[in-house]
């Protein structure tokens, strides 16, 4: 990933697929800056579905979309520990921190993503993050929606970054 190159998308008819490189770059930057961690794209585009935590942030305005990050609880715990510099957190306290951490990371990814889409930084607002626990659910796109996702690896664990775009 090259985080130094400015990304500009000027096509008014954006698709989720076209925005995916920006989302990938935005995610990589947040992990690099806030966690000192380098994400790599997974060699396996369809790894086993282990994610039981989903963080979502909505974008409303010139772009209406949902940015989401998914991972398993163990990975979210490691994210929280790394963010806090406190590997000794335990039990419920750790799970709460894990949910908080994945939500806040998703929030920063969404903010960073919209800053990369030309014209969007001033034309779009973010929701507060929502975190879902469990994996027995389906996300249904509304009419004219498109979805794109990428699997990234954080310390050998998969993290799914996705954009659900309502065009």
């Amino acid at each position: 990933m090259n985080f130094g190159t400015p990304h500009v998308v000027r096509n008014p008819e954006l698709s989720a697929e076209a925005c995916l490189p920006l989302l990938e770059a935005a995610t990589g930057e947040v992990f690099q800056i806030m966690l000192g961690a380098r994400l790599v794209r997974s060699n396996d585009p369809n790894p086993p579905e282990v994610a039981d935590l989903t963080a979502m942030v909505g974008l409303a305005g010139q772009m209406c979309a949902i940015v989401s990050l998914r991972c398993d609880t163990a990975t979210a715990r490691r994210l929280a520990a790394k963010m806090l510099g406190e590997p000794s957190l335990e039990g419920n306290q750790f799970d709460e921190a894990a949910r908080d951490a994945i939500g806040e990371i998703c929030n920063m990814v969404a903010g960073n993503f919209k800053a990369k889409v030309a014209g969007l930084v001033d034309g779009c607002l973010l929701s507060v993050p929502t975190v879902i626990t469990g994996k027995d659910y389906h996300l249904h796109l509304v009419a004219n929606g498109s979805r794109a996702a990428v699997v990234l690896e954080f310390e050998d664990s998969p993290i799914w970054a996705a954009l659900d775009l309502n065009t």
Partner: protein
Amino acid sequence: MKQKCVLIVDDSSVMRKIVERSLRQAGFELGQVLEANNGLEGLNLAQKHTLDLILSDINMPTMDGLEFVRQVQTIKSAKGVGVPVVIISTEGSEAKVVEAIHCGARGFIRKPFTADQVRERIAPFLQE
């Protein structure tokens, strides 16, 4: 150097800890560090303590950061003037920065932030 009293207002407890750690890593001598989950809690703490600096998020439940900045302007700092507020937010648009400054914020840091950005933007308020 006198240790500083800082209030961090953010609905994410993880982010409050990160902000505090970033301040310490930047070399600022912190005394009491107070935390609030939203603007209303922040306002209550600001009325009860003598603060040197407030760092606040924007998107929060109950009372958002911009309303908090407006209302906290009337509270005097340790130096006898309005407590300086620096916004730390994912909302980094020019319009949002201008709005925050118009509300009374003295600085703006966009998330994600580096230690250097924190040092540079906070130094004017915490260095004597």
